């Protein structure tokens, strides 16, 4: 029953397709009921049931270790609340943002698939199940990012996001399999108890790296960070949802989930902290120089994700606490800011902070909301962002100096970004551009306002009443580290080093804000340096180029190259095997040759040779006839009259058909170069030699008496015929013959169809 809450989104997705057709304008409102109910439900669980988390395990594909296992513990529920909560607002927001859009139904379809998948990811208690949802988030986000698919850029961005996360996902799958096979279970809550098996395994490091590849790509960690800003091609509700609150945090969630299983080792800490710290810095640097509101937010998200990752790398209670708080705070303010960015774009028609300005008068509510969110983002007291930053500083002050520097730098950049977002569009003097659209700007519609307002103000409330949320954070952290911890949360800790550092960051941020236009020029030069994205593009180009060269070489359209490749590989393969393994064995007893048999063999050989050099087609056909006759006689001489008779008959009929057909075809011409001919002669001779050797070896290795004695004894008594060959054909192996006459019939049908078929002009291929 509870799992239905997870799956409800999938049904809602289908429902959305129908609903948007039926009721275009209200569809969003109606649909948002579901996430609303979900958030209520998850909040209820979060507040009441975290001590003994609700778990369930329904059978699905038990044989491969897959089960419908869900775990509603603190960590999962926190994410579930964020997902469905922000999902609810995004749903509302989109109903305004995409009002009247022709593809609204599809939008909601994929949005709900995404939402449900995300819930699946964070609530799954089975690694395979988790992976399934994980991939579904990648897929649905592909469709959401590429929503404006008429544009090349959207399509490219969607593809890039899918490929990067897909690559990580595949690695992660391998990692999961290693985990599952080492520990003997794919159920996460069981894995909590068998983490030591894993950490002691020789395959621990590979498994870790593989899983991290999945987490890092999804969470846009360096060097995979580039897909996220490109994904801003998506419509804003999508960006707000995917890139602030949910999808990108799936990687973080995964790290948190695996922390008690794989964490606590030096490898875990070293890799994750380093990657996280680098991402933190890189994201910050990349954010500072942006002019597009959404890209600005996107890079700052990258930076924030780096920080979260880094904290999970440490993995101690304090770090986890900091991470959880930061995740929550970030979800609120980033969600709000993305939506606001969308509103600005929606109303003003641009997102470029260089051209925006003076919107506060026209969109006062938006402006205030933006300010609230930005303050939280900047970490100003008493906003939730402040609380997050305090705990963060508290943890990194214990850490390596480099890490501290990275975090402080990121916080500083965050302040600048917050200011840019808040001040530039709203409170700056409007930039004068001819035919500026600014005159027609209005406040965004209610549907688009609700989300940002609520989210921003939650950010404020949680900050002010920080201590009240302590219990929940405690439950979440306990679930994450899988042991009961004691956590208290307060807005004000006194004049501690973290607070001082916070203050300094704020001041520095304000100071540098005014230098940004100049700094931006410098930074954008820096951005032009080749980075991981360039490597990504080059490696794709290289792969495609390589593939195309290989395919050009192999699939070149020349039948004879295909054939010689095939023949050489077969001959080479079989011949080498035979020679290297020593299969050459001459038969012991041989029939003494008779001279006329040798004469016949000579005719065959000469005729075969002649056929290859004949200048006239019909001469070649005639020599084929000679071969056929001689072989027929050989069959006869070795006791096969039926074979001989059939061979004579068929040979002659074949020759006749050849004569008929060849008369109307061009004369023999050897188109190939002498060089090619020499090569072909060699291939031919090798083939011939190998076949000779094979025949002799086969005669030398005749180990078992043939089963034919049975036919010799029973053909007449049971098969009622004296001609054993004929009895075999029509009785012992009658079904062979049945197949054989079918082949003949089909061949006749084929000749009929080929030669009688006329392409009638205007004949319709499709019939209704």
């Amino acid at each position, binding site marked *: 029953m509870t799992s239905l809450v997870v799956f409800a989104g999938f049904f809602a997705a289908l429902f959305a397709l129908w609903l948007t057709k039926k009721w275009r304008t209200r569809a969003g409102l109606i649909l948002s009921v579901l996430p609303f109910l979900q958030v209520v439900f998850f909040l209820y669980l979060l507040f009441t049931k975290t001590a003994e988390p609700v778990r369930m395990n329904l059978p699905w594909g038990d044989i491969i270790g897959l089960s419908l296992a869900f775990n509603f513990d603190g960590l999962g529920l926190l994410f579930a609340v964020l997902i469905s909560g922000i999902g609810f607002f995004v749903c509302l927001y989109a109903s305004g943002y995409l009002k009247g859009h022709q593809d609204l139904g599809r939008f909601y379809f994929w949005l709900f698939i995404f939402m449900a998948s995300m819930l699946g990811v964070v609530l799954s208690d089975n690694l395979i199940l988790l992976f399934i949802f994980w*991939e579904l988030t990648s897929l649905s986000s592909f469709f959401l990012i590429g929503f404006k698919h008429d544009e090349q850029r959207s399509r490219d961005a969607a593809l890039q996001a899918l490929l990067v996360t*897909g690559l990580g996902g595949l690695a992660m799958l391998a990692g999961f399999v290693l985990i599952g096979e080492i520990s003997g279970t794919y159920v996460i809550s069981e894995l909590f108890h068998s983490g030591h098996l894993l950490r002691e395994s020789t395959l621990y490091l590979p498994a870790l790296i593989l899983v991290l590849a999945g987490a890092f790509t999804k969470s846009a960690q360096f060097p995979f960070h580039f897909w996220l800003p490109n994904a801003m091609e998506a419509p804003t509700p999508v960006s707000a949802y995917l890139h602030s609150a949910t999808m990108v945090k799936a990687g973080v969630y995964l790290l948190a989930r695996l922390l008690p299983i794989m964490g606590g080792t030096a490898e875990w800490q070293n890799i994750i902290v380093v990657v996280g710290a680098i991402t933190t810095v890189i994201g910050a640097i990349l954010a500072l120089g942006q002019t597009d509101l959404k890209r600005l937010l996107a890079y700052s998200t990258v930076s924030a994700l780096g920080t979260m990752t880094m904290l999970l790398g440490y993995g101690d209670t304090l770090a986890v606490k900091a991470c959880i708080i930061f995740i929550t705070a970030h979800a609120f303010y980033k969600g709000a800011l993305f939506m606001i960015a969308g509103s600005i774009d929606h109303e003003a028609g641009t997102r470029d902070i260089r051209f925006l300005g003076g919107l506060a008068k026209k969109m006062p509510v938006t402006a205030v909301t933006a300010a609230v969110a930005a303050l939280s983002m900047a970490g100003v007291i008493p906003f939730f962002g402040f609380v997050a930053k305090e705990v963060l500083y508290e943890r990194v002050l214990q850490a390596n100096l480099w890490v501290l520097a990275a975090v402080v730098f990121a916080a500083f950049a965050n302040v600048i970004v917050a200011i840019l977002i808040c001040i530039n569009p709203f409170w700056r003097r409007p930039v004068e551009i001819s035919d500026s659209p600014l005159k027609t700007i209005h406040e965004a519609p209610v549907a688009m306002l609700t989300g940002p307002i609520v989210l921003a103000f939650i950010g404020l409330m949680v900050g002010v009443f920080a201590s009240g949320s302590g219990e929940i954070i405690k439950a979440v952290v306990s679930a994450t580290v899988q042991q009961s911890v004691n956590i208290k949360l307060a807005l004000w800790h006194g004049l501690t080093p973290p607070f001082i550092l916070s203050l300094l960051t704020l001041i520095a941020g304000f100071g540098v804000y005014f230098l940004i236009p100049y700094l931006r020029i410098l930074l954008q030069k820096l951005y032009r340096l080749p980075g991981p994205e360039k490597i990504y593009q080059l490696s794709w180009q290289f792969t495609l180029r390589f593939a195309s060269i290989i395919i050009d070489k192999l699939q070149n359209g020349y039948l004879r190259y295909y054939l010689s490749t095939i023949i050489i590989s077969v001959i080479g393969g079989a011949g080498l095997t035979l020679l290297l393994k020593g299969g050459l064995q001459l038969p012991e007893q041989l029939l003494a040759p008779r001279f006329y048999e040798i004469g016949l063999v000579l005719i065959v050989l000469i005729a075969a040779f002649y056929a290859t050099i004949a200048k006239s087609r019909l001469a070649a056909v005639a020599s084929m006839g000679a071969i056929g006759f001689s072989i027929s006689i050989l069959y006869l001489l070795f006791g096969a009259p039926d074979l001989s008779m059939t061979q004579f008959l068929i040979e002659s009929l074949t020759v006749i058909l050849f004569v008929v057909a060849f008369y109307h075809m061009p004369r023999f011409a050897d188109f190939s170069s002498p060089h090619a001919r020499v090569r072909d002669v060699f291939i031919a001779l090798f083939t011939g030699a190998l076949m000779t050797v094979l025949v002799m070896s086969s005669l030398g290795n005749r180990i078992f008496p043939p089963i034919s004695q049975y036919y010799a004894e029973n053909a007449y008594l049971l098969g009622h015929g004296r001609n054993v060959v004929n009895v075999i054909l029509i009785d012992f192996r009658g079904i*062979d013959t049945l197949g054989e006459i079918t082949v003949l019939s089909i061949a006749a049908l084929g000749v009929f169809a080929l030669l009688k078929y006329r392409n009638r002009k205007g004949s319709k291929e499709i019939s209704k």
Partner: protein
Amino acid sequence: MTNLLVAPILIPMLFGILCLLSFKSTRLQRILGFVGTIVLFCASLGLFFLTLKHEILVLHIGSWPAPYGITLVSDLFSAIMQLLTSIVGLAVGWYSLAMIGEQRTAFGFYALFHFLLMGVNGSFLTADIFNLYVWFEVMLISSFVMMALGGERAQMAGALKYVVINLISSAIFLAALGILYGIAGTLNMADLAVKFSQIDSNSSRALISALAVLFLAAFGIKAAIFPLFFWLPASYHTPPAAIAAVFSGLLTKVGVYALIRVFTLIFIQDTGFTHTLILVLSCLTMLIGVFGAMVQHEFRRVLSFHIVSQIGYMLMGLGLFTPLALAASVFYIMHHILVKTNLFLVSGVVEYLGKTADLNKLGGLYRSQPLLAILFLIPAMSLAGIPPLSGFFAKFNLIKTGLLESQYWVVGIALIVSLFTLYSMIKLWNQAFWKPAPPLSPDVPVVQEKVLCKPMILPIVLLASLTILVGVGIGPVFEIAMRTGVQLFEPARYITAVLGGL
């Protein structure tokens, strides 16, 4: 003994003959053609469940005891394959009602189609290796004719390559058969297994290994493995989609089936050599196939190269050679047949709507044909291994086996190829569905006005639902695959069933 075993061969034969005899009425041929697929499906389903119940069924044709007569065997693997054949038969037979025109019908399309099914089912059910050759030929010649039917220039060029290379493969098969009989004096596969297991002389073992390579080549050409695959991408895009669909679903799979059959039953003395070779080839096949798919610009050529790539996956399980690995291969085949056939059916509709297969000239179908888009997405995403569709589980199990067997390189390649597969599927999606239709080209019709008819869409829906069903019902389905894998890995049961305790 149950004559139901022979039904999957005889029913298509009967309907093939009836279609052949009613050459004067195309209408009658259509009716017979479609009814035949339904009857076959019912019989196949019956045989499948009967086999599921009894594990293995044996029929000595003509009452002649094995190994003297020809024995038909339906073990789980055969039962699965023949069931899939009848499903493909049903879908394509249905689809053909819409997509195969008057002319092709008049020239025997339905008869050929049924004879093809007959050959395929025969290949799956026989326990006699020469009989396998005969069924191969039945299947091949029907495919030759179907491939060439219509006689357009591109079709001719494709058909020529297809025919010539397949004739070479038949010759290799026959030569290998001759040597095989020379050594063992028998043709019954169970008997061969018994006899080969008794061989201890070094030179004989070496000869058998060489023979194994010949069989690998003969079946490998049919299965389109590296470096023997050329015919497939050269030809599969040329015939009408209905024909390409049945080819893509069944023909190469017969090659794979034969490889799995002989390399689990007969050639298991020197697995260190033979199965490693298969594993290496499977990796190269995966890679080359997907490379081809990545660089093609035509809908069906992309799909054709994918077949090659997927064959690599199927052989990977054989190369790894454990019960789980074989189960994974079997499951992969099941998945692939449903999905690949469907994609080709979709490609037919796409070409019908867009009047071209050139990806550069296609576009806009997501907007104009959302149903088709979804119907494309399901098999395409399944092929790319997106869960919870069948393809994901297929890949998952292979990867799992590879990791369990510590074949990390192989797993790595399989994963990378999976990514490339995703890339090329998305390429198809982007070009044909997402991209706006190119406006200025005069030969691009107004797509919106085209109406899709039921026989065109319903078989696609059928196969797509099955793909989903396989994913949703992964538990029972993979359980069957696992039983199959175990059965293949331990051929003793097969041998006793066929030889009757000889």
